[in-house]
């Protein structure tokens, strides 16, 4: 019996496997984004398009706390207008953040939201938010930025506190 020759087909299989896995590394980027949106993994908040009706239990209360951070030398003062709100799941609320640009330059920034605990992220939905777009801060301008949100009643009954934090990053241009 002779030793087997390496066929063309076998070659193609051997070489295409690493190429496919390289492509898979890139495919993980959209997969990860979709996965986070569906599961609320990593504290990713959801969006909602209209003020829909939920079954509301007025007696149920959840405390929502607001946090603000800035990253990497972002020169704008940024913080929540009120530190926390007591809300009823299923009702829509408006909260706001204040930002003041203390410099002589126009600053462009982007806020990235995160919700903790992560099991609450899936049920934290935003109708509008300053984090949906990049924000432009003119020199010495103070702005009030709003978000309108709802915590869906499907939220786990054991969760009594939710933290929403925004992290502002400076955009290069």
């Amino acid at each position, binding site marked *: 019996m002779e030793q087997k020759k390496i066929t063309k087909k076998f070659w193609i299989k*051997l070489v295409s*496997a690493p190429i496919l896995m390289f492509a898979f590394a*890139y495919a993980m980027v959209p997969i*990860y984004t979709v996965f986070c949106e569906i599961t609320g993994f990593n504290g990713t908040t959801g969006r909602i398009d209209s003020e829909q009706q939920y079954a509301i239990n007025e007696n149920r209360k959840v405390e929502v706390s607001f946090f603000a951070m800035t990253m990497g030398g972002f020169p704008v003062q940024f913080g929540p207008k009120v530190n926390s709100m007591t809300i009823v799941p299923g009702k829509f609320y408006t909260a706001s953040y204040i930002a003041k640009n203390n410099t002589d330059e126009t600053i462009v920034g982007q806020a*990235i939201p995160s919700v903790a605990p992560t099991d609450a992220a899936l049920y934290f939905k935003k109708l509008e938010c300053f984090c949906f777009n990049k924000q432009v801060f003119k020199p010495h301008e103070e702005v009030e930025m709003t978000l309108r949100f709802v915590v869906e009643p499907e939220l786990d009954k054991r969760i009594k506190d939710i933290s929403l934090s925004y992290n502002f990053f400076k955009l290069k241009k």
Partner: protein
Amino acid sequence: MTTTHDEHHHGPEKGLMRWIKTTNHKDIGSLYMWFAFTMLLIGGAFAMGIRAELLQPGLQLMEPQFFNQLTTMHGLIMVFGAIMPAFVGLGNWLIPMMVGAPDMALPRMNNWSFWILPFAGGILLSTFFMEGGAPAFGWTFYAPLSTTFAPDSTDFFIFAVHLLGFSSIMGAINIIATVLNMRAPEMKLMDMPLFVWTWLITSFLLIGAMPVLAGAVTMMLTDRNFGTAFFDATGGGDPVMFQHIFWFFGHPEVYIMILPAFGVVSHIIPTFARKPLFGYSSMVYATASIAFLSYIVWAHHMFLTGMPVAGELYFMYATMLIAVPTGVKVFNWVSTMWRGSMTFEAPMLWAISFVFLFTIGGFSGLMLGIAPADIQYHDTYFVVAHFHYVLVTGALWSIIAATFYWLPKWTGKMYNEKLAKVHFWWAVISVNVLFFPQHFLGLAGMPRRIPDYSLQFADFNFISSIGGFAFGASFILLTYIVIDCIRNGKPASARPWEGAKGLEWTLEPKAQYHSFNTPPSRKLIEAESQNS
């Protein structure tokens, strides 16, 4: 190593060009082993620097930035420069002989996949001399430390990782092609020795995982230089995603570094217990299940990134599951020794201590895999102790065991058994003095990757450093033993170990430059099979 065998029609070329142009699996195996050993000494020197700084609290010898460069480069050099090339070297030397093939299936590619390595290693090491210094973000190079906040030399690091990845993937393709196509026609898959089996499975891990690493560093490269934002939150990216991609590579990677070790030990223990390997087929299936599970547990490295409870539970249970096939293997090794006629030559000493110490590393791994407990252990010296028990007394132990076990076949000569035993006891005691106290440091809360620490950690760090220096010095003796064997060793017989089985032992005492030009017969294969 430069002597030729005149009895064969063509031996190796003479001089330096032999090593540059060679396509012979034995030459390339030797090159890989020497390269890995050199890298081991360089990475070890970095470790000595780390332990010297940690000998006492306070900053003694170096700037924190340089300390971070040392920990980073120690990890990268040991993983990609020492352990992985050493196993590829063992695979090159042994697989063709074990499957009765004349050489590797793709000998020219084999030459190329080796000769990429010195350049990749050189590029990596040269970053020390660049402005801003070498990468200092740890061997896991998490974004944004490695993207936004890293020195310019990071681009050289990325290129080096690309080259190392290419080399490993080509090596893996070569081994798959050799095992599946060049195997002696009479040898069935379940006749194959376990080292061949574990390497075949490792190859599939390599071609699955290394391209993902290449993808991760390519994203880093474009993030750093070409304005993409894979890991940059301002551009819609996510630094946590880096960790997912990295550990999707990183977890199979740790099994890439340990599965061939399982193979080596499965050869040595039956030989010196003078009994057939217990549960050959269960060993094969256990290896395959470990390989499969290694792809679906990566996020247990990330329990503290903020995962939903369901995610933590899944990754915790999946991780626990790996203990089952690993337990099967340990059980089989112990059962092989049970009522065997055991003798304790150097390879056996290394193999038995492998089983014992690797299991300790496995147990601390189980502790780390428990999500609620990991909150305490995460990023402490407990983790450092854990992965050094599995990588040093696991992977490296098996490489040293394999070196002593097959050295007679590679050189035709016998090493100095007495010195080898001295070296073993020196190494096995010092390595435990080095790493065992790190468990306690970690449980007490000492974080990893720091050049300074609070006073309460001083005693254990002192003990650990003393063990470290002793362990480092043991490699001087190892170098001497190997060179002494090559130069002055007494001639070995073709089968120097009484109970050894395997086709490689049917060759001449020093395996001839070209072996198995005619494939072995069915009878010979059956006589030498581990599965009997």
